[in-house]
């Protein structure tokens, strides 16, 4: 088993103003891997999608919290975005491009597709009535190269 070089945990209420807070924290945590700006934007966008999903879908009838965990092993950063809300009945369907429950206006249904495009792996575990965990992983390959080029 790999040792974890670093980790973080953050808990916040499922309010939309925390979307920006969560993605900035995640990017700051990952930044020690000497990510490029593009890689940090990939991470921010994927975290934004997962946290927005929790905020929009997990707690339709009550307030709740979102837990963001991060860990770094070598060149790989992993994040878990967990809620304790209603859960997802059909994960396969939820991950289809353009699928949306349609319970709110103008959802594109592209959240999981965006996560999959910007991260190396995306895994979703959900228990109806218990909540959902989204695990995101990205290996940073380009360490220092951008700094060297622009030095």
């Amino acid at each position, binding site marked *: 088993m790999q040792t974890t070089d670093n980790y973080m945990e953050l808990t916040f209420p499922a309010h*939309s*103003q925390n*979307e*920006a807070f969560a*993605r900035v924290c995640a990017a700051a945590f990952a930044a020690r891997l000497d990510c490029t700006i*593009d890689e940090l*934007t*990939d991470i*921010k*966008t994927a975290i*934004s*999608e997962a946290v*927005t999903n929790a*905020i*929009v879908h997990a707690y339709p009838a009550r307030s709740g919290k979102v837990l963001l965990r991060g860990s770094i092993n070598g060149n790989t950063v992993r994040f878990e975005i967990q809620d304790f809300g209603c859960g997802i009945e059909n994960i396969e369907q939820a991950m289809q*491009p353009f699928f949306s429950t349609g319970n709110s*206006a*103008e*959802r*594109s*249904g*592209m*959240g999981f*597709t*965006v996560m999959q*495009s910007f991260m190396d792996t995306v895994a979703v575990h959900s228990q109806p009535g218990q909540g959902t965990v989204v695990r995101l992983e990205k290996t940073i390959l380009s360490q220092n190269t951008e700094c060297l080029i622009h030095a």
Partner: protein
Amino acid sequence: MQKTALHTLCIALEGELDHHNAPALRRKLDAALDRSRSGLILDFSRVTLMDSSGIGLLIGRYKRAKDRGGKLYVQNVSPHIDKLFRMSGLYSIIEKL
């Protein structure tokens, strides 16, 4: 805001286009669409981040422009946001200038 050679109103967006910011932007863009029959040009030069909430917002504005006989255009899209446009098929309904 400025009128371009196409006589279409151009609006420069700024900041992060996410779920939290989408409702306020939607109201402003809808007000602009109601005044601009030919549609809108959206300038993305100063948009630093967009996620799928932005995709939903743009699809909604496209529909509103189309209902009024206008079109939606975008310009100065960063490579990162360009990837979102391509993966969602937005360029089939929104023209890139």
